[in-house]
């Protein structure tokens, strides 16, 4: 199994209410960080990446009436919130192109399960990663591959082959199927 060392940088921001938010960061089930996030902080790691990998960032420990404690005020003037500001591999951001397409999976507390109607639980079981804010206890799962620069490029910029400009090739970038077919034909012709 080929292992590639990659620099992973994660910018997090914690917002205080009763306590700073708890976060756990792991790659391929190896925990890299577990603790409270105070204000804005950048965590840098060197990770051993294989072909297919999983980055998990978890926000946990926020209370929603558990033991009669709420880690947010009713008017939300104070709220214990974890925000993912940025994730970078080898100093290159995954960018809004990646984050905007993803969702946080909510992990309900027992108190929430008891107090919230089922349709609300269902409706909010996933929340958008667009602004990076984890209001609930939740899990962010990013599957990434090596070579990391190829993965970043294709994940961020490759669009479906529908043409934004009709018959223009602008939207066909990174759709190499036709190239590879023609390359094979040309090689066969001139061999």
């Amino acid at each position, binding site marked *: 199994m080929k292992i590639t060392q990659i620099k992973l940088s994660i910018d997090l921001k914690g917002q205080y209410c009763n306590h700073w938010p708890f976060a756990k960061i792991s790659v391929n089930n190896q925990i890299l960080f577990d603790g409270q996030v105070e204000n804005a902080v950048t965590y840098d790691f060197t990770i051993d990446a294989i072909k297919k990998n999983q980055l998990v960032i978890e926000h946990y420990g926020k209370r929603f009436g558990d033991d009669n404690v709420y880690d947010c005020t009713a008017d939300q003037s104070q709220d214990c919130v974890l925000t993912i500001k940025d994730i970078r591999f080898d100093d290159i951001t995954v960018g809004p192109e990646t984050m905007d397409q993803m969702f946080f999976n909510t992990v309900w507390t027992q108190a929430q399960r008891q107090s919230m109607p089922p349709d609300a639980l269902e409706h909010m079981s996933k929340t958008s990663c667009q602004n990076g804010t984890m209001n609930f206890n939740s899990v962010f799962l990013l599957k990434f591959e090596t070579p990391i620069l190829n993965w970043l490029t294709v994940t961020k910029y490759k669009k479906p082959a529908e043409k*934004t400009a009709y018959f223009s090739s602008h939207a066909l970038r990174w759709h190499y199927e036709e190239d590879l077919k023609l390359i094979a034909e040309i090689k066969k012709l001139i061999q």
Partner: protein
Amino acid sequence: MTRTAIVTIPRIEPHRPPTGAAIVAKVCSNQGHAVTCYDLNIEFFDYCKQVNVDYHNFDSVWDGFSDPDSIQEQILTDFINYWACHIAKQSYDRVLFSVFGVSGIYFAERFLKIFKPMTTARVAAGGMGVSYTGLKTDGLGFGVKLRNAGLVDDYLTGEGEVILIKYFNGEEGPGINNDTPHQVEDLDSLPWPDYSFYELDRYDYLTNNEREVFITGSRGCVRKCTYCDIERYWPKFRYRSGQNIADEIIHNYEHHGVTRYYFTDSLINGSLKAFRDMCNKLAAYNFATPIHWGGQYIFRPKSVMSDDDFKMIKAAGGDLFFVGFETGSDRLRFEMGKKFTNADIDYQLEQFSKNRLKVTPLMFTGYITETPEDHQANLDMFPRWQRYVADGTINGLELGSSLIILPGSPVERMIDSHGLTFMLDSNNEPDIKLWHSSTNPGLTIQERIRRKIEIHEQAIRYAYPVWRQAARLNDLKQMILKNNFHKPEIKKKFFKINSI
């Protein structure tokens, strides 16, 4: 009142209205003509959509790599017949054809063969395409050929702004029915293109239907790159003042709602002074909707461009730049006449990345003196700059054809010194794409194809955003088939021996 039609023909980019014809329209209008403009390029683009055929697949026809297939032939015939009849029926006094470049020659010839017998109008052709000559054709250009064949009454070379007025007045001289191009010294004195003659909402804008037009800041080039034929058309480099260019951009923004601009210049930053002045003026103007512009740009040594230059470009709306990297070999790039190194590219890419500017590198393989080591340097470019693909700085890559010995380019003057010999094309003329050099015998046609394919595979390996990839490869395949390079006896004859 003189009734004048101005006809633009394929192929030009469908992404913006034609600028040359828009200038001609303005000149004619200023002369009191009643002007109608036909952009047959965008008509053809729309027609291709209508009949569900890929417009871009005609590139290999326009570029002479292949003949139209049966479907393309039918489409072309129908299209030409319809528009030739339609324009002829309007009984214009004058019809002016804009032949943008070599890529317009095929269509121009076919169209005029149908159109000219139908019309009583005085027909003229202009644009860079009329100045085109084949290699070793004793200086006879496409314009002469059209005129000798009776397909046009006149042809105009060089810059139309002044020539047209002389032509309408019945004068003779440089640029009128001869291949001595007329050059204008003071570009600031020329009229701006008038896009009100075009339906601006028809074009295939690349960015969310934002209107985009061409703009010309300079003509000619400060460099004399050996593979380029620009000096043939515009021997001297001339440029507009930064203020004048900024004024035109602001005019089009205020009057036509145009927020994107593409410079036709060989190099947008050919004159650094004018470029910096333009950027300063644009950065200072209060655009309610941000504008963006781009074009062909040259990377310069680090000592010439400061950090502040890049910040200023961004503040002025600079967005996407097409830069001729050409090769990964410093030695070869200098030999081509480019005066920057891979280390300069490192610096510029870093600055582009910092300032969120985008670049599409232009490159080609198979320069006359390219060695296996140079080819390896080409391959090495891809991992070296891949991080700029991943961060969005490099947002396109143009892998051009192998070196073409363009008439009028410095490499044409190296034919003897490099012992270049050519295959003959179907017209029994030297094929400028299929050459062989006795001073670099290892660089056979087959080797050039092999290197091009290897470069393309390398681009895919490192996830580069290759632009128009399939069309380019298809050109190559058609060239192989057209010349029967796949047949053993031809392969042996043209691929393996040193002299063609």
